[in-house]
């Protein structure tokens, strides 16, 4: 299922023709029409109060999927259910199925630590550990069994090059990571995640705590990662979603629970949304 539209209220524009994946107007060819993650009827509740209700969508391999919607519509909750970070929150209950490469991540057999290695997460506020730049990158690798010095050095170099930080920090790898600027810290966090060679990167408003210049740099970085990683990005910045995403999902709060209103190609969501709430939100009339 590629396009989705909530089976409620009025729909804007023409009927709701089922969509098949055509050539993407904007987007890399490496974007495969195979779902990496399939979310089926996800319902997530905090202390018995639903924050997300019956969300179903497919996240495609190598594509950037943007999640947009007003504050409190459950974007963060949705992201943290994908790597089971929601397990950490007492009183948080998840129902429905999430298939990662076809495997239900809530299976007894799923190794949660391995899942989290393959599904990296970037938070809104950069959160490098109060260690050196090098330790920030090496420590998780060591914990996942990379022990050889040469492998570690190569991974540090590779990930810093990939996020465009190598030239900036090559002389001070042993300096504290917290001495970096906010934008550099966020890129370091992305480097830390991709050093583990994940398949998926979850990004929760990765630019919203950054100044405009850093924000542009990080956004360009996300665009450059497209194709190599499956990226799910929650953002309030519609222009940004439009620039980087291949797909977009629009969430809305209904009866105090977040629901997915529409999911489609990014262009379609912004240029010819079929649900009137989507149309109102992307044109800035509501939200």
């Amino acid at each position, binding site marked *: 299922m590629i396009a989705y539209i909530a089976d409620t209220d009025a729909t804007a524009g023409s009927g709701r023709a089922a969509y098949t994946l055509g050539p993407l107007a904007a987007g890399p060819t490496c974007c495969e029409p195979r779902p990496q993650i399939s979310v089926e009827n996800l319902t997530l509740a905090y202390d018995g109060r639903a924050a997300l209700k019956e969300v179903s969508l497919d996240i495609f391999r190598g594509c950037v999927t943007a999640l947009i919607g007003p504050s409190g519509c459950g974007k963060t909750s949705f992201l943290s259910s994908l790597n089971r970070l929601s397990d*950490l929150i007492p009183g948080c209950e998840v129902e429905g199925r999430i298939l990662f490469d076809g495997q239900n991540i809530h299976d007894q057999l799923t190794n949660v630590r391995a899942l989290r290695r393959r599904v990296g997460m970037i938070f809104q506020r950069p959160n490098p*550990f*109060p260690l050196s730049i090098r330790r920030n990158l090496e420590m998780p690798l060591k*914990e996942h069994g990379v022990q050889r010095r040469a492998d570690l050095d190569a991974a540090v170099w590779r990930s810093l090059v990939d996020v465009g930080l190598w030239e900036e920090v090559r002389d001070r790898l042993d300096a504290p990571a917290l001495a970096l600027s906010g934008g550099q810290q966020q890129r370091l966090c992305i480097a830390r995640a991709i050093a583990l060679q994940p398949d998926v990167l979850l990004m929760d408003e990765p630019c919203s705590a950054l100044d405009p210049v850093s924000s542009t740099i990080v956004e360009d970085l996300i665009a450059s990662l497209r194709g190599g990683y499956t990226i799910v990005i929650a953002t309030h910045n519609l222009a940004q979603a439009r620039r980087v995403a291949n797909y977009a999902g629009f969430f809305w709060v209904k009866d105090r629970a977040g629901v997915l209103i529409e999911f489609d190609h990014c262009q379609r969501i912004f240029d010819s949304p079929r649900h009137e709430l989507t149309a109102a939100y992307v044109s800035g009339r509501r939200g």
Partner: protein
Amino acid sequence: MTLSNRSSSSRSRRDTRLVAAVATAALGSSAIFVLIVGFLLKESWPALSTIGPARFLFDPAWRPTEGLFGLAPMLSASLAASVGAVILATPLGVASAIFCRHYAPPPIGWIHRWSMALLSGVPSVVIGLWGLTAIVPLIGRFEPPGASLLAGILILTVMITPTIALMSGAALDSLPDAYGRGAVALGLSREATLAHVLLPAARGGVAAGILLAAARALGETMAIVMVSGNVVQAPLSLFDPVRMLTANIALEMAYATGSHRASLFVSGLMLTALVIALAAAAWRLSGDHCHG
């Protein structure tokens, strides 16, 4: 207009008064500290000027009535007991802080935290009583007499473990959630998260707790008098009865006169200097928060 002027000026007058009160209190407490140090200096001055600082360290014995003022055996007993207690209490205290936050089921963790807080408030004379009736006889069964450096170390450990546990716990609690969540999101295990992220991030607070605990151990008197035997000798074995610097002051002050009395003030001055150094280091470390 007038109304708002009046209310703002009355508020600023109130503010001024509040600032004055706070400043007076602050100045008052630092003045008391300066007074105490000045008083110690004044009272120990006769001994420092006539006997000289070196002899307090190098005289072969402590026989103040015969002109021998060697504080070294008692200083080394104090240091040995404090260092020993810190060595035992640090792993216990840090482990207890970690246990009740990350491993214990909530009710047990809660009870554990409360008992640590209560233990830190038990009067030292009561802990001394317990040491005298429980620990000293126990040690005496293996190595008589029982009242010994080891008994002192164990008693001090009981007294300072809560300090380390509470300070380390506070340091762990003050860490931003983002560290723990970030570590878990990278697939780190709970142990790795603690060992490589949370504890290093909290190291300033943990170290500050250790130093404050060391200062408390150095300054402890009552319980130590009760369990460590009070024989003036350099500790050569854990089972030797020893006398700490603090105990010496408490035991002899009542009858000391002249240069004997003044040299007790010298030992008070020494203790104060040590404790100030430790507290200053602790203060620097705890101010040196590595997280934003």
